[in-house]
């Protein structure tokens, strides 16, 4: 698949939501960048606004403040610029797998036959060969997730945003899926943005890990992951880096508890 990977830059994104009488600050100035073809993971405590950030990047909700550029240009609208994969697989139950994954092409105006042919070429890479004409309900959880990933990559946007794509899977399937994605992500040739709360997942997959604070979220630190691939979770360097990121996350959460405790007094 020949997609030109694109570069994403997120600068000073703020977002708050109405909450009770006031507003709940969710994002408090998020800045980071993902180079063309880079795999960047965003980790943070649950409820810190990671999904909100991703929805802003995909143009589904508007930021209160801040800019997002793609290849250095600020697009007129972000809608349709970034391929988005939400937390659930969200396959259409009435479409066969092939028509599910070809959907983004159909929406882009490609005729059904061409869309199907293009989609069919990817089934081997995603381990779904022979299941082109199955319905989603006939697939296992891992297979559905791979189908949803395939659909996401078929949007051919050059930037892919994945929101906890393996969150709903059991531990064993999740590990298999991570290894599989680590193996194929380079071949897919897109800039990948992965939101997760699983540090190990981020380290297996990404070139760089961006750590967010609890709500209102800021970028605490960025960790480059200079480990050779394929990565092993038992590699001492891997374990050390994981420890560093975890303690960075923990420090932030402790800080938050202290602030809350202080406010209560």
């Amino acid at each position, binding site marked *: 698949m020949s997609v030109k990977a694109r570069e994403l830059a997120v600068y000073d994104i703020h977002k708050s939501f109405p909450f009770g009488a006031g507003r709940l600050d969710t994002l408090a100035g998020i800045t980071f960048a993902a180079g063309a073809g880079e795999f960047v993971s965003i980790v943070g405590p649950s409820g810190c606004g990671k999904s909100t950030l991703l929805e802003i990047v995909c143009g589904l909700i508007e930021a209160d403040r801040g800019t997002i550029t793609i290849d250095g240009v600020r697009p007129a609208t972000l809608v349709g610029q970034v391929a988005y994969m939400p937390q*659930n697989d969200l396959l*259409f139950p009435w479409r066969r797998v092939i028509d599910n994954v070809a*959907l983004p092409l159909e929406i882009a105006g490609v005729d059904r036959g061409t869309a199907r042919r293009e989609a069919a070429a990817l089934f081997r890479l995603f381990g779904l060969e*022979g299941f082109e004409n*199955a319905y989603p*309900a006939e697939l296992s959880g891992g297979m559905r997730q791979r189908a949803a990933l395939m659909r996401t990559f078929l949007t051919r946007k050059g930037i892919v945003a994945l929101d906890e794509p393996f969150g709903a899977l059991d531990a064993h399937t999740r590990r298999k899926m991570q290894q599989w994605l680590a193996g194929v992500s380079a071949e897919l040739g897109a800039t990948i943005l992965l939101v997760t709360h699983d540090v190990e997942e981020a380290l297996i997959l990404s070139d760089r890990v961006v750590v967010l604070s609890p709500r209102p979220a800021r970028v605490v630190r960025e960790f480059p992951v200079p480990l050779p691939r394929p990565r092993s979770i038992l590699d001492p360097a891997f374990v050390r880096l994981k420890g560093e990121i975890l303690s960075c996350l923990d420090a932030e959460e402790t800080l938050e508890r202290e602030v809350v405790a202080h406010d209560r007094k």
Partner: protein
Amino acid sequence: MQPDVALERERRRERRRTARWAGKGLAYLPPVLALVSGLILWEAAVRLFDVPRYLLPPPSEIIAAARSDAGALLGVHSRVTLMVAAAGLGCSVAAGVILGALIHRVQWLRQTLYPLLVISQTIPVIVLVPLLVVWFGYGLTPKLIIVAIVCFFPVAVAVVDGLDRADGRLVKLVRSMGASPGQIFWKVNVPSAAPSLFTGLRVAATYAVMAAVVSEWMGADQGLGVYIARSARSFRIDRVFAGVVLVSVYSVIAFWLVDALRKKALPWERLLSDHTNGRGEAGTRK
């Protein structure tokens, strides 16, 4: 990856086979048994207490009456009634789908028309009969209107409900792909509404036969409604029952036809209900 993929498929197929099997054998037996024993009781009671035949004939005589009139019953009377039922149903489906879609899409129609539509259902169709006769005479038109009025409501409501029920997360997803409002409607809302439409259609199809029979009471010379009314006037209760049974048989056939069509049109529903026990409404499982 390939072996476990094949295994998964086989496992699911097996589960489906056993589920379908268990469901069928048990579901049809109890009502059939109840019906047969009820008929036997009826026959025995009528003979034992010597009930006058012009009040309640035994089932055996109803069957005999049905046999002797079979030619007319299954021929001209059925043809006329079923034609009116089918044509009226067709009109109401077309009107119901169009109006349902409009109510779904146009906010002010939803606010003005939808409540009126619900209120209109409190008017018994029977009281409209004299009006329709005054306006349209005794021809085919008023009969079609009666059937269409009766069947229209379940279809329209099912369409509105089905279109509204589309999963918001799917809408969000296709929006992120840059879909236009029209594409969202056709690719998300319309397929989501299909199960609901068939549910409404099932109700409408069973009503259609009944409504066609009633419509003939305002004046006609052929049809099952005419046959039933004439038989009642001449105290041939056995024939009345024969007509009534035939009408309900046609209603059940209409019901089955819609379900068969649904299975054909929405093959994926069967897969969903296997492990969710739901009625297969559109939506994603966790």
